[in-house]
């Protein structure tokens, strides 16, 4: 499965490592459409759903999903962003980082079904931090998790509810998700970690 995009060839990205395209723009589009339908199915029409993207790239994904949900169901679905920087468990290990933006839809999240949206699910630590952050904002009825890529190697008991693509990787590899809103193009790339990076 991971080799499906081999014919896309290798290209030299600014990051330095030769990266292989594992999802093309059309495939990203289809994956998001499928996730949107799964959300509708699991939540009986997404009436109480609030989509919260985790910065940076979870946010545009959340808005894309909200668009699709609205197209299908005909009612707007609130989408926002949830920055988790202050809740990370590795703050003491790395230099301070700039904060992302948190924007909770005005209706709040109390008694709603919150779907957290992120680009890549890896160790699960980001999601753990997001769950803590949610607890300080309100008390949702349920929390679900949607990710574009699940690359495995979980370090915590966390699993996604909606997955765009399962991508078996080794820990030496890096997955880069590019989105038009942030990077000017849509693509998912798989590269090898450069020495010293």
């Amino acid at each position, binding site marked *: 499965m991971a080799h499906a995009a081999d014919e896309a060839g290798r290209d030299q990205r600014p990051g330095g490592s030769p990266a292989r395209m594992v999802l093309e723009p059309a495939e990203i589009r289809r994956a998001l459409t499928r996730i949107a339908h799964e959300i509708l199915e699991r939540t009986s029409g997404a009436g109480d759903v609030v989509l919260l993207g985790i910065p940076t790239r979870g946010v545009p994904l959340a808005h894309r999903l909200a668009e699709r949900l609205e197209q299908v169901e005909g009612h707007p679905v609130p989408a926002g962003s949830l920055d988790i920087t*202050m809740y990370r468990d590795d703050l*003491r*290990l790395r*230099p301070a980082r700039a904060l992302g933006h*948190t924007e909770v839809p005005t209706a709040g999240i109390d008694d709603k079904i919150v779907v957290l949206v992120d680009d890549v699910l890896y160790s699960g630590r980001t999601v753990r931090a997001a769950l803590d952050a949610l607890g*300080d*904002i309100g008390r949702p009825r349920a929390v679900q998790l949607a990710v574009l890529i699940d690359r495995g190697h979980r370090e915590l008991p966390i699993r996604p509810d909606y997955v765009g693509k399962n991508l078996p990787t080794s820990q030496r590899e890096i997955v880069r998700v590019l989105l038009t809103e942030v990077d000017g193009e849509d693509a998912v790339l798989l590269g090898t970690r450069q020495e010293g990076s």
Partner: protein
Amino acid sequence: MNRHLISAGDLSLADALLILDTADELASMAERPVKKLPTLRGRTVVNLFYEDSTRTRISFEAAAKRLSADVINFSAKGSSVAKGESLKDTALTLEAMGADAVVIRHGASGAPHRLAGWVQGSVVNAGDGAHEHPTQALLDAFTMRRRLGRLDGLRVTIVGDVLHSRVARSNVLLLSTLGAEVTLVAPPTLLPVAVGGWPCSVGYDLDAALPKADVVMMLRVQQERMNAAYFPTVREYSRRYGLDAARMALLPEHAIVMHPGPMNRGVEIAAEVADSVRSTIVEQVANGVSVRMAVLYLLLSGPAQQGGQR
């Protein structure tokens, strides 16, 4: 960023913007039901205050507590300092208690700088003598940016007792880094000798400066630091350099009035000006907590510091 925050002049443009942007995000947290973040759990912040202060100490305390740090308040009155303990010995005591950050206010210029050489944690200057008060300058810049949308090219007029004002010096240094044009207006006796070397212009006529100002910052006349007479009478000072309603009318439509507090109503600022919609004085206090949270977060997250100097 540096490990300490001693002078507003140590901040690069990137550092200053990082602090302001971080404070912006943290300010939105003040509207949440749970106004607390777990970020500095297990870290200890010591407030070491050798001078009386209400708003700065409370502001730092609130900031540290909202980040879940443990706060120890130490005021010189009624402590071992009153028994004659030196700053260095006090610093070593704090060090032994495992302070990750020391927020210090001291009557002597340079005390925070000395302290930074003795303790391993981060030192934050909360006002030293007539030298600097960097977090006040940061919260002033933050307030200006929130009200007026920008700092680059902003014309800021700082009026009054510049000589005794650490707020003025820190503001001049920070605002010039951020691209604002600062003008100091004061009686010649209340300007420091070396003011010619500061990155700002100097004037003596308030009425001439007001129509060109986007921001007017009134400084408190620090009578407790005035051993000699710097102006003939308070009434004369107030007539020439106080901001009353008539003077406020000279300001452009959008201009704001700031004061670092505590105010002497009727001396440098008239009550009707202090309470007007243009005044940001109450806002400045609220913004102070967000800015100090940003400073503590940026100084204290990351690896625990080893070794006394870097």
